[in-house]
């Protein structure tokens, strides 16, 4: 049976987890449908890292980090953790022979995770 899917990058999760007033209500419907088994949320492993290690903010207490990691283990959140290297080779955004920048790597992984979800 095919299930409807939504691709979420870190922006969506960073709307829900801090309960941002302009974003969280927009995320609620998708999360409720996912919890009801009506759809899957697909994201990349990089999203989890971006959510847990917030740029310019102190490291999260261990209990909160564990709780967020546990949230990402739901079977309705599909985290693509495929190896980055071959995916980069497969990605037309990155030219072979050039060492990709950290940003290019991040972009490439997002692109690949989004492509896989189609």
């Amino acid at each position, binding site marked *: 049976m095919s299930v409807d*899917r939504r691709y979420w990058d870190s922006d969506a999760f*960073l709307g*829900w*987890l*801090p*309960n941002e007033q302009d974003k*969280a209500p927009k995320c*609620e419907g998708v*999360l*409720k449908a*996912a*919890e009801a088994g009506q759809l*899957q949320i*697909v994201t990349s492993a990089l999203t989890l890292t971006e*959510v847990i290690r*917030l740029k310019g903010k102190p490291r*999260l207490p261990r209990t*909160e980090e564990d*709780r*967020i990691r*546990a*949230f990402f*283990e*739901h*079977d309705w959140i*599909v*985290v693509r*953790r*495929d*190896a*980055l*290297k*071959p*995916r980069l*080779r*497969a990605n037309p955004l990155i030219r072979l022979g050039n060492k990709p920048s950290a940003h290019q790597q991040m972009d490439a992984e997002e692109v690949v995770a989004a492509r*896989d*979800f189609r």
Partner: protein
Amino acid sequence: MKWAVSVRSGSVIVHFEAIADQVDPNIVAESVRAVRDGLDLIEKKPQRPRYWSDAALKRAKELAEALDSKAGTLQHVSISADSTQKVITRRTSANVDSLIGIELRALGSIEGRLRTVSEGGGLHFVVEDAITHNQVRCYIKEQDTETILAAFRKRVVVYGEILYRRDRQPASITVDRFRVLREEKELPSAADVRGILA
């Protein structure tokens, strides 16, 4: 759905009849179309036909390779369905190879529910990809057997060297380590984590 297979004595023509058995007759017609159109597509180019699993692709390849059989009696393989005939040549075999042949290997991880555990073809278990539903073989060491059996039917993440096919899908992984994921009831709900980063 059931398939009735019949063959006449002395003939190389095999007749398959799809029979609706507790399924909508439309599904039967759609299945026949999927076989016919899929064989047509895979003969023309290396593109996965709609509804076709890896197993279906491998069977099509076997059909094409009947032409290379040492018995050497088959000159021609074709499929007839709905008054149309599709000829299968060695191109089908080459196109399947292009689609699912192994292209490269790299370290990575695979997530899925641990299903089959088998010794056939090397000690391994199988996880099913949550999106593609492809089965990925996970080769394990003998000493990890008991741990793997204890994780039977649980969701796991396995880390190790992955073999990727030409269509960029993982085909198998040699397991270096693995982790059992928690069951749904042990995980926080969306409401539980709302505002956790506030």
